């Protein structure tokens, strides 16, 4: 028997999630800077020095600054308030998918140290739980709906570092995850299209 689940990411065409930059891609490079990301204790628990040194070797990143990136994307200014418009869209989606909206939304950090986030974490918020969508082949459960920030765009990998562009970093993203309730390709197609 086939069992299938989906994780759908939808970018929102609002301003970025935590600053006033436009959500668009850009080919214009204004400036470059270089950073190192270090695993934190939350990731490692008790720090093993050898593991630490090994991980540091691979963690030099070069960031390309575009006209639609500001100090927030550069991790040089605290995030602004969560974009209202993006939040409203996410809430609407949650209601349309019959999900239960949490009593209080908390933005939290998901540690990501491959350099795709200048901060070393992705800001993400669980908006709603326990939704569903009814299809021709039966009900598909949607355990979580999240609102999160898009990662920076990987441009190239070279000796001694990975190059990322900041244009995409911070674009709002609604993440809809379904349970593995789909039984055939037709149903997957239907769910994907409806969402």
């Amino acid at each position, binding site marked *: 028997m086939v069992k299938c689940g989906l994780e759908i990411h939808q970018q929102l065409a609002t301003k970025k999630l935590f600053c006033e930059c436009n959500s668009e891609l850009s080919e214009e490079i204004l400036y470059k*800077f270089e950073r190192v990301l270090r695993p*934190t204790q939350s990731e490692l628990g008790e720090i093993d020095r050898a593991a630490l040194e090994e991980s540091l070797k691979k963690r030099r990143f070069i960031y390309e600054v575009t006209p639609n990136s500001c100090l927030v994307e550069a991790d040089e200014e605290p995030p602004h308030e969560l974009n209202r418009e993006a939040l409203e869209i996410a809430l609407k989606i949650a209601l349309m998918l019959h999900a239960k909206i949490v009593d209080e939304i*908390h933005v939290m950090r998901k*540690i990501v140290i491959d350099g795709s986030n200048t901060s070393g974490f992705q800001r993400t918020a669980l908006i709603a739980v326990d939704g569903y969508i009814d299809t021709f082949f039966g009900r598909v459960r949607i355990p979580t709906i999240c609102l999160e920030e898009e990662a920076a765009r990987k441009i190239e990998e070279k000796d001694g570092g990975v190059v990322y562009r900041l244009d995409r970093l911070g674009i709002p993203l609604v993440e809809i995850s379904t349970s593995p309730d789909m039984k055939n390709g037709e149903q997957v197609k239907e769910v994907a299209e409806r969402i």
Partner: protein
Amino acid sequence: MDTLRSKHIYKVKILSPNMEVEPGDLVEVKTKKGTFRGILMPKHEFSDENIIVLKLDNGYNIGLIPEEIKCIKKGIRRKKKSLYKFEKKDLPQISIISTGGTIASYIDYKTGAVHPALTAEDLIFSAPEIEEEANIKAFVLFNILSEDMNPLYWIQLARKIKDELKESHGVVIPHGTDTMSYTSAALSFMFSKLSGPVILVGAQRSSDRPSSDAYMNLISAVRVAKSDLGEVAVVMHATTSDDHCFIHRGTRVRKMHTSRRDAFKSVNSQPLGEVRGNKVIFYEGYRKVEEDVELYDKLDEKVSLIYYYPGMSGELMTRMLEGMDGAIIMGTGLGHISNEMIPLLKDFIRDGGVVGMSSQCIHGRVNLNVYSTGRKLKKIGVIPLEDMLPEVAYVKLMWLLGNFERDEVIKLLPQNLRGEISARRMIIW
């Protein structure tokens, strides 16, 4: 910084039938929307008072209105040490005296919350590699926010530094960044001789984030503390990149940005040097360590720092001068204030007050000879303070009034004692 301020205390009475629950515990929460299981997180400061925050298995935090909470498993608490000492042969001893601030914070890896470092171990936790650099003797002297620093703390800190320099090669002082340059100026004046480097260091991003500048700043500070610098300095990121730190003279440095890593700049002068990887490079002209330490630890707190602005009333100026022994004015441009203020200052100086003039331009030298207002100010005894930073002048005047007679104070205020004044300013700034 925000997380440091949160109290981590729930006002909502937690209904827990089996035992008391604390942040860090694994709990089961019954709500109208169903039952949730996860780790109880510290309360968020902006959270509604009826809400508790839970970290779910999938890593997400959510706020819930609880009906009942059941403790499944107690969280593990760490053991604490108050003094941390690690010894290795052939390495110099460096004392780390923590005063608080973002750099002296650590993350609780169970809950992800940032706490101020209360113990030496917490302090070393974020950068265990510094043990390869020196024999570290670390302890927490204060645990205060930078904005709560004051002259009494400066004096206590200076005395502690003197003690530490008896056995340590140098001293590193983790400090909140907001007022770090006031502390560095105060220490610069208080020590007329130093037998080892005194290095202040801070962080603009807390150590709970992989991108934190705390690690590079701290390790660079320790490297400078091993050098022959006989001055008080501030070591912080030179640019937004993680490639090198600047060594700023304690009397020349100023926080020039609210949030950037490279917020600290040497004003009206070049930095003393830089730290690139494990290389400490001094550019030119720094004071070397001396045989012993000489400390003048008195400060007269009766000094005002007055920012002049158009529309400032004479009444307000009078009140700011009342009961004071001295005042530093941040004038406009080359060092001006409205003509209405001149008789008020004249009376204050006649009654024994000392007044110095600096500029709110921050960059450049004051000059009271160019315009008539300046000449009038000079005539009534206002002392032009060259290119000294206003905050540095404020600290210097406190120190001078605390340790010297008035005539001497007036003579020394505009003189260069600790590199706080220069004769030349460069085209490139």
